């Protein structure tokens, strides 16, 4: 039973993102700003930081693929970016100590990298024609702010849980 808890948590976050967007009023945060939740990816980064690179990249690839198929209908974007940024983050964490404050800032950095990566890809395939400066203003800052709030609330319980998971993994 405990084995299924981890995938279930990520599946819950996967669906929570879509629900969040569905019920968010249009002008919640100033007229034209876009608030995109990155709850799933924040949790994936925390998993990488507190449990390990192998699990992190595996889950990132699986949920990246799921994200592409279900929400985007263009396969490859998140399938590539989720594991790639997870890998970069795990490299960064080699140098840094895995405490809660460092984890917070590294996760924010990871989300920023993801947003910029996604923007660049969509710009290339003409899904968007927003220029970079308006992208920063209308999208990146609000998204980082929203996810910082999410992390502030959930980073502590997630850290506790992931450390427990890491312990059982080491025990096996």
């Amino acid at each position: 039973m405990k084995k299924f808890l981890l995938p279930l948590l990520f599946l819950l976050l996967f669906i929570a993102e879509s629900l969040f967007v569905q019920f968010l009023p249009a002008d919640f945060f100033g007229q034209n700003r876009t608030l995109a939740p990155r709850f799933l990816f924040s949790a994936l980064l925390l998993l990488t930081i507190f449990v390990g690179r192998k699990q992190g990249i595996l889950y990132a690839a699986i949920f990246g693929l799921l994200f592409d198929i279900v929400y985007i209908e263009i396969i490859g974007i998140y399938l590539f970016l989720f594991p790639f940024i997870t890998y970069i983050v795990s490299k960064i964490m080699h140098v840094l100590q895995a405490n809660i404050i460092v984890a917070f800032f590294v996760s924010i950095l990871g989300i920023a990298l993801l947003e910029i990566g996604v923007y660049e890809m969509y710009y290339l395939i003409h899904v968007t024609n927003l220029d970079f400066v308006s992208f920063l203003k209308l999208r990146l800052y609000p998204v980082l702010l929203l996810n910082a709030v999410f992390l502030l609330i959930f980073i502590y319980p997630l850290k506790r849980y992931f450390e427990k998971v890491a312990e059982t993994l080491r025990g096996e």
Partner: protein
Amino acid sequence: MPQFFLNKRLIILLVSIIVLVALIGFSLRERSKLSLPEQFIKDTTGWVQSLVSKPANYIAGFFENLQDLQDTYDENRELKTRVEKIASLEAEVQALKQDNKELREVLGEKKTLRDYKTQPATVIGRNPDRWHEMIIIDKGNVKGIEKNMAVITANGLIGKVKSVNQFSSTVQLLSAMDPKNRISALIQGKSKVYGFVQGFDAKQKLLLIKSIPSGAKVEKGQTVTTSGLGGVFPGGLMIGKVVDVKTDQYGLNQVAFVKPGADFYDIQNVIVIKRSMTQPAKSDMSNGKEEEL
């Protein structure tokens, strides 16, 4: 740095970039249908999503009701003034409908572009990354939904069906940027003016209607509906109201800015529209890749 290029990780990175490009290319091309594994995954997650989103809808509805209670008094007064007008309007519409039907029978033309069947559906998800404006609804192929059908809410057109699975489907909203997405629109004034809904101004949240002839008179406040001439959508679906008219960049046509009647956010229930009139074969209508709806 020969060592750098022999690096195993670098090779993995390069291979994955190649795979990425191939996959994106595969999914970007014009697909009439999603592949079976994709459909299966979408249906499965759709089922889980509807398990979660239906109670969520219910709770959100409850809070909305509470909010509504606050301004009930003002609304009631406003509505009462309107009700009297509606009764007479309804009688008039009835008479006109009857007239129309009789005249059609005389002519022997029974079907019109305006006829359609409806299929209500509930929204069970929305694309969280918000670059593609898409929603997922809980009805699919089994309920007779097909690609490119129009999707409306009570207030007007919101988009078209982008892909269909067995038990769920994806709807692309009008606010999505997709150059292939052209909808034939009719601006109702003293004379009929036709144009194409083509693009969305993300900064002002207005739809753009292009290819309006430069001589045509378009004024603020005129209603815009679908024309039904695109061959896929039925006519007479509300799109919005004209807010502003400008000459386009070459000075040959006019562009109308239209405030959409429907809210593209906070959508919970939608209606999928199935056109009754037969569709002309696609090869008869267009020669290029562009779709006109």
